[in-house]
């Protein structure tokens, strides 16, 4: 009896397996790289109804974030300002009130304007956690986590874009080690703040007052350590006893 299968079929099964393996590896590589908020969300830069320039208002003019986002310390939701707040500076006879870019604002606010509708400006939301996760701005900004940790350098963005992934693992990175992001409470909205802006003497005095450890002991324990965010954060974490929750129900309730 002759051979049913020709000679080349001997290696066929192995070849098919190798090909499938290569294909699978490529597919996994694509998924690993792009099926994550680091790819799908970071860089999201939608067009807003008014091209509001944060780098001008918060950067160049040095306005505090809370001039507009006034309820961020009192509410889980950081408010988008009411049109009245824009109108404080851009109302008739004030700054750039005739600019065509402000058309939606005039429609919302200017009762003498022929296209007045009184309808709110429909800003596009960029930063969003899923509806089954509850994030509280209030809890974070009142405990030394700056805006910049989640939103990036807004004061340098002419058009705001999504700078951090806001994924769950990214949240947990901080909840497991909050020391690296904590800063003094009066610098929360100072996005360019760094360790060099903090005076060690007054900081040690503050920490000593909170922890009941003397300034000398604090300094002794810090000898040889670099004066950086990590060191400052570690002290603040102890002084405020910051223990971010890591259980599911902390955010998913």
């Amino acid at each position, binding site marked *: 009896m002759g051979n049913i299968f020709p000679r080349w079929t001997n290696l066929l099964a192995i*070849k098919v397996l*190798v*090909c499938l393996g*290569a*294909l699978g590896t*490529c597919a996994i590589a*694509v998924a690993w*790289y*792009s*099926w994550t*908020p*680091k*790819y*799908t*969300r*970071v*860089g*999201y*830069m*939608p*067009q807003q109804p008014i091209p509001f320039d944060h780098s001008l208002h918060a950067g160049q*003019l*040095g*306005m*505090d974030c*809370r*001039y507009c986002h*006034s309820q961020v310390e009192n*509410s*889980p*939701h950081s*408010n*988008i*300002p*009411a049109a*009245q*707040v824009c*109108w*404080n*500076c851009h*109302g008739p*006879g*004030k*700054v*750039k009130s005739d600019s065509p870019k402000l058309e939606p604002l005039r429609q919302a606010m200017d009762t003498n304007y022929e296209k007045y509708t009184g309808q*709110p400006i*429909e800003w596009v*939301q960029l930063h969003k956690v*899923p*509806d*089954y996760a509850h994030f509280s701005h209030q809890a974070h900004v009142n405990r030394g986590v700056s805006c910049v940790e989640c939103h990036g350098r807004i004061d340098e963005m002419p058009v705001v*874009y*999504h700078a951090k992934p806001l994924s769950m693992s990214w949240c947990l990175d901080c909840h497991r080690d909050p020391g690296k992001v904590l800063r003094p409470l*009066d610098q929360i909205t100072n996005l360019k703040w760094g360790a060099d802006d903090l005076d060690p003497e007054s900081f040690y005095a503050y920490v000593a007052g909170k922890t009941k450890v003397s300034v000398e002991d604090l300094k002794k324990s810090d000898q040889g350590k670099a004066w950086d965010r990590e060191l400052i954060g570690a002290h603040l974490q102890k002084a405020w006893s910051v223990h971010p929750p890591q259980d599911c129900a902390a955010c998913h309730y």
Partner: protein
Amino acid sequence: MRWFFLILAIASITVALAIGPRGEKFSTPPFMLFPDMDNQYKVKAQKPSEFFENGQGARVPVEGTVPFGYAPPKEGVSAAGPLDFSRGDDYLNTGLFGDFYGKGFPGEIKLDETLLARGKERFRISCSPCHGMSGNGAGIVSKYWAIPPTANLVDPRVKSMPEGQIFWTITHGKGLMGPYNGVLSVKDRWAIVAYLRGLQAASGN
């Protein structure tokens, strides 16, 4: 086999180019891999809602009702509208005694260091863009745009104003200045008045 790997290589390069690096700017709404329950049909803060006629999720309280923690408007307050549930006619909330600006701070406001620190912080956030850090009317806005002059808060005119009038002005605005009752709570407005008194004393005018 050779053909397969050639095609796979070409396909990989094509896909890689189509995907592009992480963090590239784009304006279309982000792709959601598993959108399950990410966007629930509940009313969220400052979000639209198809359920209501005007499309806004934020609701105006039903007429004649008062939210928890607020007092109903006092009888006979002429300006009280359906939304003025918190606006009593007392000095704390209006800065007025009857039709006159009151002098001094209301009894509910405790003048202490905490209040001044709060006032300083809020003044720098909400007032300094126009009135300047020292209150002299030369804020950052006046450096870039020729808008009509902003009030110098440390000159004798404002210094001689009763506290109630300054509070009333922050609440309702004046001239080109808009009302700040939406962004500053009653207590914060009094804290700013207190801090402003400090600035005026320090200015020596």
